[in-house]
């Protein structure tokens, strides 16, 4: 309210309140309030006493008109239209809180879960990246003819493509980097990325502080520079602005900090989830020509020019890549590049999971609504008599319809509000670290989310409220007879509707359970996969520090001999070894190899093999079986012939159909002889691709691999107990060696399977909830059916029917409903399950075992749910049943 404009707000409140007053009395009521308010206003104004406080007082008084409106007329509720029905509904529900206590939590769960899932799906799948023109940012991917793999690219290829095309403002690459940050506080491993200097230009973002890289700041001989991520700068350096320009020691090298990313910066390549994004960025330190053309360990990213369409860019890139395939057939034959909008590249892999979970939650909500409709219909049947009396007293059908719908509306609004609260909490959970989503969940409850929740709430209210409301509206056709109109045709119609609802619930439950069953079976298959190693009993202890890097080969040999000897001496250690990249740990290195007897490939060419630098004992400790030949021995020193272990894939790729033992090949700058063939292991976990694998002895490769990091492996019956003594043993040999991640191989395996376990668990929970709801629904309907047919049962029993026959009668009725529901559900599942295929491992989407189990389970559960009402029917006392009529 402002001076000069009159008490506008107060009048507005009164006008709103007037809507609650019956139309006939509305004008009159409103005039009185407006008269008072305006008279008071005028009086205060005349007296010059229209203070802020006085104006507020008028507004408060006007607010009281709402209460007056609710009470207006006869001292009773006299509200108009739906408002009155709502008021009555509130009172009715408050009188019988039992119903509310069942309905509201059910609805809150359904609405909350769907809203939360929608929020997560929106944030991950739909939210644009926070870059200017995010649609022009694309991932550049490189796939073999057969498809598969992550679509990683090689730096030389991308550099050539950038040169050969004009559709792009810039194309850059990035790859993981895990340096150890060394300062007074000790040594910690940080998450880093090696990027081309144009990386941030491709994204189109500005530095929050300082600057990003310039185009001449990459390649050999430049000063090493880093950019820090905003969160890392804040947490590690207390957001100190003088960090820019300061020098940092990262893995033994000195880097100068040139800038900090903006607070809202989102690096597109998060390693598996929020909180895992890079903390430091450095530029690539050697030119493209020095990187292998076959080692596809980079992620390509480009920004298309504003005047070029995605299609044009694609065809230009295809043509340019065809040229590369011709120029470097060894590395690029039978491969193709793809341009994928960044959002699809990043969020795409999560899409099947999120869409499946969203659909499942939606189905669950439908089942919940069907159940509530059933509940309310059951209640409506019980109130048949009440409705009939109302009708007899002159209530119109639409009036009863409105009143019944108002109850549903009140229930759904309360349930929706509770659901929104639940959703907010659930989204908070999902936003936490470790949810392993490819993009952060902002959890912002904005208008879109509110609209979604409101839509779901209204939809749910209509879904479960309409049936009972229609029932109430038509109820009056019956006379308010002594059986409450139970036996009339209208009641039968309602009971038919309830059956239909139960059949629908069972159908949806069947399809949901089949989906859950497929995922459980797939998860079991995944867990049962032979990894090619024995994960149980192995603990891995990552070592860090640059202390050992500058050691001469002899000194290095002495140090690692001492370390391994000390580790093997730890009580409880059955075997021990060390290697650079631990299986299941996520990291790997792909190194180019080529046969010695063929002309050496050009720079960066040759076959890409998963290469591991090991110290003796590693292969045996992992439990990777030796197929033929021998393992690496401590005697395979630098001065002895260079040897190697390979797996069968490696052998097949280099020497198809020939015994590889004794064959020689080049890797890095050396020639190695194959002395043993070991089993292939699944480095990335079950269900992932594997490449040819190669094990080299670190001393024979100039201790090169050790610079990539070294992890001690030890096997014992209680691996957890080995950690502390191993730490102590390492510290004894060289106290400057820092300990990084400590994890068992089993632990790594669990992490690898975590997303799968999570979604399988959710699906099982959804399925179980659906089953429970469906069974409650069928039990309720059967119970009512038995009550209604008490007399019929009595007559049957009186005429000599056996109780078992009567019980069978009821059971058959229930199972018939169950059968129809299950048949429909199986049909739905057969149609929809194909969509699940992307999430399944070695299980067909029509796996008969799963379908059979679900049908058997549901059949059994349905019979159990019907058993109690059936038993009740068989115990009807004919005399009592007939006398009650």
């Amino acid at each position, binding site marked *: 309210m402002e001076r000069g404009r009159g008490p506008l707000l107060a009048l507005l409140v009164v006008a709103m309140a007037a809507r609650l007053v019956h139309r006939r009395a509305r004008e009159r009521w409103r005039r009185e309030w407006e*008269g*008072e308010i305006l008279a008071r206003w*005028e009086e205060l104004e005349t007296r010059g006493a229209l203070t802020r406080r006085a104006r507020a007082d008028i507004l408060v008084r006007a607010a009281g008109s709402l*209460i007056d409106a609710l009470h207006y007329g006869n*001292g009773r509720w006299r509200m108009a239209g739906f408002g009155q029905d709502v008021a009555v509904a509130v009172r009715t529900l408050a009188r019988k809180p039992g119903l509310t206590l069942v309905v509201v939590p059910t609805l809150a769960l359904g609405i909350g879960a769907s809203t939360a899932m929608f929020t997560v799906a929106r944030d991950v799948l739909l939210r644009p990246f926070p870059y200017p023109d995010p649609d022009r940012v694309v991932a550049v991917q490189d796939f073999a003819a057969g498809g598969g793999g992550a679509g990683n690219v090689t730096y030389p290829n991308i550099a050539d493509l950038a040169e050969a095309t004009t559709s792009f403002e810039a194309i850059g690459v990035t790859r993981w980097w895990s340096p150890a940050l060394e300062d007074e506080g000790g040594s910690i491993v940080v998450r880093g990325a090696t990027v081309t200097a144009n990386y941030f230009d491709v994204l189109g973002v500005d530095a929050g502080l300082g600057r990003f890289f310039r185009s001449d700041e990459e390649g050999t001989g430049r000063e090493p520079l880093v950019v820090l991520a905003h969160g890392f700068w804040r947490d590690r350096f207390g957001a100190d602005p003088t960090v820019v320009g300061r020098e940092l020691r990262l893995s033994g090298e000195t880097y100068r900090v040139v800038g900090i990313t903006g607070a809202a910066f989102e690096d597109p390549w998060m390693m598996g989830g929020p909180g895992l994004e890079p903390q430091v960025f450095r530029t690539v330190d050697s030119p493209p020509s020095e990187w292998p053309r076959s080692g596809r360990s980079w992620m390509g990213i480009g920004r298309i020019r504003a005047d070029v369409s995605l299609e044009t860019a694609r065809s230009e890139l295809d043509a340019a890549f065809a040229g590369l395939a011709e120029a470097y057939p060894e590395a690029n034959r039978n491969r193709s590049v793809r341009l994928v909008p960044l959002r699809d590249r990043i969020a795409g892999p999560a899409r099947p999971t999120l869409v499946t979970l969203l659909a499942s939650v939606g189905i669950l909500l439908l089942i919940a609504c069907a159940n509530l409709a059933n509940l309310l219909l059951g209640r409506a049947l019980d109130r048949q008599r009440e409705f009939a009396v109302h009708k007899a007293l002159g209530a119109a059908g639409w009036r009863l319809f409105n009143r019944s719908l108002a109850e549903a509306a009140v229930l759904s609004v309360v349930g929706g509000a509770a659901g929104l609260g639940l959703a907010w909490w659930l989204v908070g959970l999902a936003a936490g670290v470790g949810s392993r989503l490819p993009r952060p969940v902002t959890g912002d409850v904005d208008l879109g989310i509110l609209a979604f929740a409101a839509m779901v709430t209204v939809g749910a209210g209509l879904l479960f409220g309409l049936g009972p409301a229609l029932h109430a509206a038509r109820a009056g056709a019956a006379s308010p007879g002594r059986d409450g109109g139970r036996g009339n045709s209208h009641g039968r119609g309602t009971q038919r509707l309830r059956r239909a609802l139960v059949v629908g619930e069972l159908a949806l439950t069947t399809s949901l359970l089949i989906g859950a069953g497929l995922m459980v079976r797939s998860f079991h298959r995944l867990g049962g996969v032979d990894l090619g190693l024995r994960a149980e009993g192995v603990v891995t202890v990552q070592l860090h520090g640059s202390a050992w890097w500058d050691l001469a080969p002899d000194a290095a040999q002495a140090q690692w001999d001492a370390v391994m000897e000390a580790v093997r001496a730890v009580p409880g250690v059955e075997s021990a070894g060390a290697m650079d990249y631990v299986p299941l740990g996520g990291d790997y290195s792909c190194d180019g190899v080529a046969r010695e007897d063929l002309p050496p490939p050009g720079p960066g060419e040759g076959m890409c093999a998963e290469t591991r630098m090991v110290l003796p004992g590693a292969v045996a400790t992992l439990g990777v079986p030796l197929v033929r030949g021998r393992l690496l021995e401590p005697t395979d020193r630098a001065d002895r012939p260079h040897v190697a272990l390979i797996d069968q894939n490696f052998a097949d790729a280099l020497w198809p159909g020939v015994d590889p033992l004794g064959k020689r090949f080049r890797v890095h700058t050396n020639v190695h002889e194959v002395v043993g063939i070991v089993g292939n292991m699944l480095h990335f976990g079950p269900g992932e691709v594997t490449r040819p694998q190669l094990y080299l002895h670190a001393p024979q490769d100039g201790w090169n691999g050790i610079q990539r990091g070294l992890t001690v492996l030890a096997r014992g019956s209680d691996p957890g107990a080995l950690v502390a003594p191993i730490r102590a043993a390492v510290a004894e040999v060289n106290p400057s060696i820092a300990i990084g991640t400590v994890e068992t191989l089993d632990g790594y395996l669990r992490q690898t399977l975590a997303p799968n376990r999570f979604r399988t668990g959710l699906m099982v929970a959804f399925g179980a909830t659906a089953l429970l709801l469906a069974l409650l629904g069928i039990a309720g309907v059967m119970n009512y059916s038995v009550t209604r047919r008490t007399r019929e049962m009595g007559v049957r029993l009186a005429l000599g029917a056996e109780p078992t026959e009567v019980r069978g009668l009821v059971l058959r009725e229930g199972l018939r409903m169950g059968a129809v529901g299950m048949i429909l559900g199986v049909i739905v599942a057969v149609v929809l399950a194909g969509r699940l295929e992307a999430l399944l491992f070695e299980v067909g989407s029509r796996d008969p075992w799963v379908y059979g189990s679900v049908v058997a389970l549901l059949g059994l559960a349905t019979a159990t749910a019907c058993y109690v009402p059936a038993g009740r029917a068989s115990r009807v006392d004919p005399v009592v049943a007939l006398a009650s009529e």
Partner: protein
Amino acid sequence: MDRVRMTQVTALILHAVGAGRRYGFDIMDATGLASGTVYPALRRLEEARLLRGRWEDAPAADRGGRPQRRLYELTGAGLTALDAAREKLAGAQAFLAASPPIREV
């Protein structure tokens, strides 16, 4: 016609009207009661014929260019009820004055 329970609120309102406070907002000023309390009570009292409501004279409202207010007057029954309430209140006051304060044991 319903009977109205004589409560502190109804008694206060009847008293205020009897004392010449005839408009809703004036009654609030006099009694210190909120509008959400006063108006429903006025409706009940009018319904029970303890108060009579009528619209104020049109010229007064026209001068301010606003709708007419509704003013309330005591009816005969209202006056009787107010007297009865006052009597009861006087009795209660006499009782309070005569009895020693009750202490907690």
